[in-house]
């Protein structure tokens, strides 16, 4: 259930960021300071996938949609594998924000937190009490 909610929240954030990327009307609701600066992050070359021009947030839509489906179908192992891929990607993007760009995008961080939450939910639970002789 928690994975589903996190997926829906992440999906909503990704849709918003994708719409902002293509829109000339909808503003980016985000402060622009030295440390927190969505505009700086989302106008960088890392905000698009290679030379495709597709925003990274669009990949987020696909990722969260698949997560929601896996959560709904209770494919726990598949969700763990999928969220592991997501977490590695998130760590790379956090590296880019902090080290390469020196600025953090609040919306991106919220989406990253959703990926982490989904990964934590998908982690295998410890087995019940065991006994030893």
């Amino acid at each position, binding site marked *: 259930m928690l994975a589903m909610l996190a997926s829906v929240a992440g999906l909503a954030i990704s849709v918003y960021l994708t719409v902002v990327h293509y829109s000339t009307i909808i503003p980016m609701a985000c402060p622009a300071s*030295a440390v927190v600066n969505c505009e700086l992050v989302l106008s960088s070359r890392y905000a698009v996938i290679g030379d495709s021009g597709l925003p990274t947030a669009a990949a987020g839509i696909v990722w969260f949609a698949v997560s929601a489906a896996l959560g709904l179908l209770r494919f726990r192992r598949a969700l763990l594998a999928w969220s592991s891929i997501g977490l590695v990607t998130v760590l790379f993007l956090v590296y880019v924000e902090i080290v390469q760009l020196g600025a953090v995008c609040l919306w991106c961080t919220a989406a990253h937190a959703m990926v982490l939450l989904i990964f934590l939910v998908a982690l295998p639970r410890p087995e019940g009490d065991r006994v030893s002789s």
Partner: protein
Amino acid sequence: MRKPVARTPVWVTPLAVVAGIALLVGTFLLIRWYTTPVPPPPLNVDSTQRVVATITSLPASEFDSVGKGSANNVIKPVSGTPLIGPGGHPEVFYLGADYCPYCAAERWPLIIALSRFGTFSDLKTTTSSSSDVYPNTPTFTFHGATYASQYVDFVAVETTDRDSRPLETPTAAQQALVNQYDTTGSIPFVDFANRYAFSGAMYLPDVLSGMSWQAVADALQQPDSPQAKAILGSANLITAAVCRLTADQPTSVCSSAAIQAIEKTLG
């Protein structure tokens, strides 16, 4: 005898993951801290003069070959009472601050463009803030500099130094111009005699990242360099706006094909 083995609490694994990620983020912050360039010390007077001489004596053919380059034309036509400067010429008014990285970027083309109409004196090198975006962008400050021209007057206000300490305050009349034409409050703000105005930079400051003043000056002598395309392209846009104020004088500057082509796009 069978002894029960303690069950691993359910929160241990997630907590370990979160702690690991926190450690990784901390490492990223350390890497950033170690790799952020320290601001280079300002150049002495002789070195500054050499750099200024280099960037203000670029051949006209280079401006022509760059054209608009990679610059973003943010100059907009405005209407109002023509702004006349203290020398009786059309006034180009600039508002910025030394800490501001976009001002740092825009001063290069401003100096280059205005030097085609007159002469700057006492320019000093500085860098934008170390703690803002695009830290330590190499530039000059207009604070303490003077400009003389038979075509235009240039009035600059730098509100703070690179550490955000107060430097200069716009007069009431200058503030009124800012309020009227710079509705977003962005700096740098440049008003071309109330005929054209723009705020913000015409290119991103990252093109100057990690460069010394001399390295930028050297790059400007190569028309194909990213720095020349950005800075000289911006300088051409500014030159075209100034040419509109001076009735295309001097002709040696304003009659070039590149400037004439840009003038047609200014509106």
